[in-house]
Structures are given as C-alpha cells and as structure tokens.
C-alpha cells in the first residue's frame, strides 16, 4: 500500500476502499498538519480543519480531478479552510498589514502559487527527514546532504553496507510515498 501512487490510491478510494482512504490520510496528514498549524497556532482548530479537508475529499472522490499527485489539491483545500477559519474565528488577523490596501502597490512576488507552495513543501520535507527513525535519518542525511558513498557511511556509522543500502531505500520510499 505504501508503494501505491496517489492516482492508484484515488482509484481505490473511488471504489469506496476505506483502507486506501486511511493510507491517504496517513500519507498527507503530518505535512498538512504543520502547514495549517503554522497559521492557526491551535491544535484543536488544526484538527477540525484537517477533518474538513479529508472529509470533503471523501465526499467529492468521484468528481475530484487529479493529474498525478494529490498534494496540490489537498494544499489548496487546506488553504481555503484556513482562510475561512481566519475570517470566522481569528479576532485579530495575524500579519493583517499584508492584506491592507496601502501595501498592495508594493511588488511582492510574481511567482505563481505553485512555486510558493513548492517552496513551503520543500521546508516541510526537511521536517519529515527530521522525524525519521534515527538510523535512517543519519544514513539519509549523510547520503544526500554530504554526498558520502555507501561504503563511507557504513564506516562512519559502523553499520554493514547492506544496512546502509536498506535504510537509504526505505528513506526514499518514505518520502516518495508522502510527496509523490
């Protein structure tokens, strides 16, 4: 199930497969939780928002149109829920100065929303690496960030080369399943 792509998962979800739906929730909820929590700073409300996002995906599973990954859909759904929450619940809107007309003339950015989302996603991925089991994290960091060979990593961490290989493929697997 972990190796199943989003598209395949969605196909199973359309056949009312609840296990596939649970897998989808497990796959995306950590990253979406952080995405929303940064903006609400309230665990209870973040839970409510995520519940709305996933429940509406289930209800609209037949009509949702996804190219190759569900994350843009889910992030945008979460964005609407957060803005709705902000309008209804947040008495003093955080960073509201950015939304006031006089600032409109400042030229902020001309990158599209997808770029902004990708930038944030990259940061959230870092966090996922942080949360890996310790051996996996060490192996993965040495391999990707410090570009060490499998042999060097095995030496440095006193692990067998096979263990290092296993851990790297497990780590990539984890990230792929979360962000493919």
């Amino acid at each position: 199930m972990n190796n199943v792509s989003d598209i395949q998962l969605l196909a199973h979800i359309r056949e009312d497969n609840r296990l596939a739906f649970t897998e989808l929730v497990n796959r995306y909820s950590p990253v979406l939780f952080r995405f929303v929590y940064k903006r609400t700073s309230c665990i209870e409300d973040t839970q409510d928002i995520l519940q709305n996002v996933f429940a509406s995906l289930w209800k609209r599973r037949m009509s949702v149109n996804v190219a190759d990954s569900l994350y843009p859909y889910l992030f945008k759904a979460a964005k609407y829920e957060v803005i709705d929450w902000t309008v209804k619940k947040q008495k003093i809107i955080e960073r509201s100065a950015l939304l006031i007309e006089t600032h409109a003339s400042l030229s902020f950015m001309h990158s599209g929303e997808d770029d902004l989302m990708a930038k944030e996603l990259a940061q959230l991925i870092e966090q996922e690496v942080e949360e890996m089991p310790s051996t996996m994290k060490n192996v993965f960091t040495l391999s990707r960030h410090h570009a060490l060979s499998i042999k060097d990593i095995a030496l440095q961490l006193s692990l067998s080369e096979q263990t290092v290989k296993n851990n790297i493929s497990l780590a990539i697997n984890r990230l792929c399943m979360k962000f493919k």
Partner: protein
Amino acid sequence: MSEHKQSQQARKLLQKYLDGKCTPGEEEQVLNWFYSFEEKENSLPDGITEADFKTTLTQRLDEELFHNHQPDPEKNVVILRRLFVAALVLFVSGIAIWMYLDRLPQVEDTALLAAEVPSLNNANQNDILPGGHYAKFIYADGKEQIRRDSTFFTFTPLDSHNRNRVAIEVPHAGIYKIILEDGTKVWLNAATKLSYPERFDDDQRLVSLEGEAYFEVAKDIHRPFLIDAHGTTIEVLGTAFNVNAYESDVKTYLVEGSVKVKKGMQENMLRPGQEAVVLDDHIQIAETDLEKNTAWQRGEFYFDGSNLPEIISRISHWYNVEFENEELLQGESTYKGAIKRNTNLSTALKILEVATGKSFIIKGRKVEIQ
C-alpha cells in the same frame, strides 16, 4: 490604524477571496499573505506527536464518514472538549499544557484498535491497521472509564488524603501515557497494567506494573519511587528508564539517573546505559542497547538481526495477532533498522520478509509464516 480596524479590513479582503471576487492584484495580495507564514517555526508543540494527531484524525473521520449512528455527533463533543480543556488549563494555570482530548466513549470498543481492513494486495486475506491510544481506568469503587485520548493528567488536591488505588489496563494494540500526581510520566505499552494511588504516601511513591512501561520519574529525594513488578522492586529517586515486565524475567533499562533493582535478598545499582535482568532470584547486570530497548516509546519497532522472537512478540501485542509456524524463524539476520509503529501490519511484515527471507501472510487475526 488600530489593530482591530486593520483586521476588519483584512477580513473583508479574505471574504472576497473566498467568494471568488478578487481582482488579480488582490488575489496576489492574499496569496502573498497566506504564504508569508512559510518561514515560521516548523515544529510541533511539546508533548504532541505525529501519531497522536493521526489517530485522532482517523477516528474522527471514521466517525463522521462511516458511522452515522450518533445523533448529534460533532458540535456538542467539540464544545464539551473545549470546556474541559479550558477547565484543565485553569486548574494548572502557570503551567503550559498541550493536550487535546478525543471523545470519551463509555462502551468498550477495543475492536477499533488494530482493526481488520480489506487488503489491496492479493497475497494477504486482509490487512490490519496499527494500534492506538486506549486505556481502561478502574477506580477503587469499581467504576470503570475508557479513555482514547493520548495522555491523562492526574489531579489530586494537595490536601487530599485519598489513598485509593487506581488501576489502568492497556489492551493489546493499545498504548497510553499518564502523568501522575507527582509529575512522573509513564508511557504504557500494549497489554500492560499499572496501579497507583490517587495520592502518594508521604515517604514513598509505590506503583505496581505488569507488562512494559517507560518511566520519567520526577525528582523527590524525600519520597523514593518504587515499582513492584512480579516481586522485583525497582527503586528510583529521579530518572528515566524502561521496565519490561511482561514475564517474570523483569528487565530494567536505565537511560539516565540511577535506579536500584531488588529481588529477594539481592540488590544492585544500575548506571545509565546498563540493564538488569531478573532470572529467578538472581539479578544480571550488563551493558544494554538503549536505542533498541526503548524503541517502542519513540514509536518504533527496532530490529538488530538477533531479536526476531522479541520483534514477533512486539508485533503480536501491537496488532493483536498470533503468528503460526514461528519455529521457521531461526538464525540471525543481517538486517538492522527501525520502522514506525503507526504503519499497517502488511507494511511491517514486508520489512520482516526482507529481513528473514520468509513470507508472512495475514489471515484474519493470524499471520502464517511460510
């Protein structure tokens, strides 16, 4: 402009965005605001783990989408939950507490833990979801309470003389964390019982344990913390350690501080990084692999190649399954590593397949080794 007025103006723009009535310039402004939080601190608040909110979320979605039998599900529960949280926060004002409570059903529904679900893979008859937070509290007057939140805080007024004992039972496929009256934190693993008094005595803090628990004992030099496990006594002043007391060969793994292990006439002090294993009336002290022996408390299964029988028993506790043909698993494996416990059984077994070269097939609540 006042903060309040500014927020009002901002609110109007956001509402316009939700209604789809923004000009391209306004839309850019909203997006710029929305993504300006990107650089904000990324970590979760203390005491909240990924597994906690995943479990809560899955349960709530399950309730909302698949069990429509509850007459008025969401609203009241949410309000009650908030009131309860508010009351707790007031009660311990000055201490920052992060907790969130799930609903507290009064029926026993351990069936929802490690539930059987359809398999996507033809090799297995079905798949099994991971276990979750669950504990049964049994009070001195015989009352029972089921809790499915992640953590329970014990509050006993300082002048209380109530020494009634409370028993907590965590079933197969369950896990639970409790913070005792003195601030000691106890993580209870699956198939575990802990009993403690609502208020500790003035000269000691005595609890008893069957199963496995990880302790972070609050320092109190006047009241040693004592754990009774199958007749073995573990005495502590303030420290972190794991006790595995599923069987009578009680094992203690010390992470920090110091503890004393007593059995019959013998007693031994442990240093951090050491383990004590009680065999009959004899205590064996040895260096220990803490990463391995406290993995469950970090939400991991840990394989080091030589602990296959232990992993099999941990998996059967957590997913509430039984293995068949266990004798086929002999010898050591070169595989070493950890996987998270909040994964489906089929995924955990896939790793075991790689490690052992055998295949594992799920049939209902049995796992057949071939």
